[in-house]
């Protein structure tokens, strides 16, 4: 129960910070010259995309340790991380096209980040479907771990194939190894937004983890 309370508190903090980031991004960050106001979607789109990918990697890492240690806590965390990762994936897949429409004139573009997130989203769907299809806890955890590890190992290959496929995406502004070509104010807002998404990720995962724990305690299987 204590876990649940902390989870809720972190989420409340996260949501209030979200409001702060909204205010900062909309009112206090300069409008980008070429893309205009639509560029502000960038502050939500990019952190969500980063966490969608990080979520999958965390599922993979937790799954590797689960196979060695067989500790149910890792399995619960993997499930929570997958669900929250999928949630952030939904954000990316909705804000992405909305951002793409005014800039490139089409709702869907096969650009690197969007395609990668679409694949991650499909992996999450598969992962949660597999968990849903197996009732026996031990078996479900092992199957989910196998899929989680495979999913994590696929991410680099998706990066390879997506970046090679003709990409419309403007060169990744921030993640370029050379100095990020984003003016200070915008970069600060992006960093702040990334912090907010991190807090939200932690808050959601904690609550989701506690929910699974509660569900296991209230109706232990026959």
């Amino acid at each position, binding site marked *: 129960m204590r876990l*649940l309370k902390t*989870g*809720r508190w972190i*989420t409340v903090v996260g*949501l209030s910070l*979200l409001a702060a980031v*909204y205010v900062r991004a*909309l009112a206090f960050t300069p*409008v980008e010259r070429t*893309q*205009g*106001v*639509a560029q*502000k*979607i960038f502050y*939500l*789109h990019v952190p*969500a995309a980063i966490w969608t990918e990080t979520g999958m990697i965390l599922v993979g890492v937790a799954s590797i340790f689960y196979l060695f240690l067989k500790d149910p806590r890792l399995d619960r965390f993997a499930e929570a991380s997958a669900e929250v990762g999928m*949630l952030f994936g*939904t*954000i990316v897949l*909705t*804000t992405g096209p*909305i*951002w793409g*429409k*005014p800039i490139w004139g089409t709702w869907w573009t096969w650009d690197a980040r969007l395609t990668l997130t679409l694949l991650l989203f499909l992996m999450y769907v598969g992962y949660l479907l597999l968990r849903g299809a197996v009732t026996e806890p031990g078996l479900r955890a092992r199957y989910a771990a196998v899929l989680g590890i495979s999913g994590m190992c696929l991410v680099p290959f998706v990066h390879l194939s997506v970046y090679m496929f003709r990409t419309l995406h403007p060169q990744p502004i921030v993640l370029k190894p050379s100095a990020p070509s984003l003016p200070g104010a915008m970069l600060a807002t992006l960093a702040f937004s990334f912090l907010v998404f991190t807090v*939200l990720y932690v*808050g*959601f995962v904690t*609550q*989701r983890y*506690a*929910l699974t724990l*509660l*569900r296991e305690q*209230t109706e232990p299987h026959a």
Partner: protein
Amino acid sequence: MPENTPYMVTAYIITAAILIGYAVFLYRRTLKP
């Protein structure tokens, strides 16, 4: 660039809706597991 504004506003609303929606969903589910 006023005509881009509706896109930005929609995106912000959707993001907030998804995040708050999930928070409420979790809160209600944890009340009665």
